Structure formats: C-alpha cells, structure tokens
C-alpha cells in the first residue's frame, strides 16, 4: 500500500512521530534525513532562520516531488515535512523519511527529494545573525540579477 505524506508545517517537527509510520514489513531499509538550522553560514554566526512560503504552490510541489521519488525508486512509503516560520539553531527545518525493500533506493530517493526540494520548492529563508543583521539567503539585497534559476547561483542553504 502506497503511503505518501507531505506537508508544510508550522509546529516543530518530531522525528519520532515520523518514524512511527516506518517501515512496512516489505521494507528492509529506511533513511531519515533531517535538515537542521546550524549556528553558522558562510562565516557568519547564525541565531535563527525565518522561513516564508508560497503555501499552495509549496504543498503541490512537495507532493509532486514525493510522487516522483516514489515512482523512480520504487518506494511506497515516503514522508516529507518542511517547517516554516521562525526557527532557532538546532531545530529541524526539513524531515524526509523513505522506506524501500533495498537500501540503495532508500538513499537515492532521500537524496533526490532533498535536492529537488532545494531547487523547486517556493520557500525562502531569512537568516538572523548574532550581530543583529538579517538577510534573505540566496538573494541580493537589491535584486538586480537577471535570468536567474529559481535556486539562484549564490544559494547556500543554512540548513543543508
């Protein structure tokens, strides 16, 4: 039975609750990826992140990416949560759980989902620095860059 769960959430992500659904009896491998807010990025000390989202499009995009991964890697059990709003260092921003009969596909599906999500998901993050400053990650302060891919060229996510 195929069970794909995807959601944009505002409450803290609890990995234990995600794992409670994994795996099925047919699965020999489960990979859980957690993206976490870390305390530094590009030489700056980070105290937190604020995520903004294009809600409808993000929900749709997340569901599409999970379905693509399920199809490509033969996984019938995938959960993807992305949190938005204000997050502190150490909090989980992204959780991806994939179960498959064999381990190779679980790793590949998990990797596929995080890479596609970073390319396509309409979510933006503003880093808050120890020095009181803050900045949208991947954007110039005055956006003048032309013909840019959705993920930008300077994009270096803080929660990797």
């Amino acid at each position, binding site marked *: 039975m195929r069970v794909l769960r995807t959601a944009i959430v505002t409450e803290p992500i609890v990995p234990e609750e995600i794992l409670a659904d994994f795996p099925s009896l047919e699965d020999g491998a489960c990979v859980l990826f957690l*993206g976490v807010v870390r305390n530094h990025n590009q030489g700056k000390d980070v105290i937190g992140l604020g*995520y*903004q989202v*294009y809600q*409808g*499009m*993000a929900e*749709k995009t997340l569901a599409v990416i999970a379905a693509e991964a399920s199809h490509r890697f033969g996984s019938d059990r995938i959960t993807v949560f*992305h949190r938005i709003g204000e997050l502190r260092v150490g909090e989980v*921003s*992204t959780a991806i759980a994939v179960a498959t009969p064999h381990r190779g596909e679980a790793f590949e599906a998990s990797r596929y989902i*995080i890479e596609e*999500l*970073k*390319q*396509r*998901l*309409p*979510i*933006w*993050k*503003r880093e808050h620095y120890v020095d009181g400053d803050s900045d*949208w*990650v*991947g*954007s*110039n*302060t*005055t*956006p*003048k*860059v*032309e*013909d*840019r*891919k*959705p*993920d*930008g*060229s*300077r*994009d270096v*996510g803080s*929660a*990797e």
Partner: protein
Amino acid sequence: MGRAFGPPFFLSMNIQALFFASYRDLLGTGEIALSLPEGTAVSGMVAELRGRGGAFGNLPAFPVVAVNEEYASEDRLLRDGDVVAFIPPVAGG
C-alpha cells in the same frame, strides 16, 4: 471584407501578482492586482511593472515566475484570472 467600425477595443484581463521574500521587502507589498490587455505574456507584465519606476524598476527584467502555482517561461501568455508569482531564488531545506 467585413471591417469593424469605430476604434479597436481591447478586452482586458484581471491578473493577480504575488511577491515573496526579497521582492516583497523591495516593494513593500506581497500582492498587486493588475489589468492587462488580452494577449499579454509574462514578459509584458514584467515590463508593465518595471515601467512603473521606483522600487518596481528594481524588479529583475527576467524574473523567475510561477503562473497558477507552476513555473512558467517569460513567453507564457496570460489569461484572465491568472495568478503570477514572482519567485526570488528559493532556499528551502
């Protein structure tokens, strides 16, 4: 040989523009309603906005956009009721 009498008229479309993240900060708003002539493409809508000058002049000439929640190219023709989102570099994860 039929020919319309009177001046040509244009049907106009109601288009909603959405701005996120740095674009929203730049413009001070997340949403604008536009009325555009039928047959306008994404590129024409961008030109109209940039032509307003001020902060709008700082929008990129070739921004990434989504039409009705799907990424679209600049030559995508708009239809009445379309929602066009301006997508600055995404940074999920």
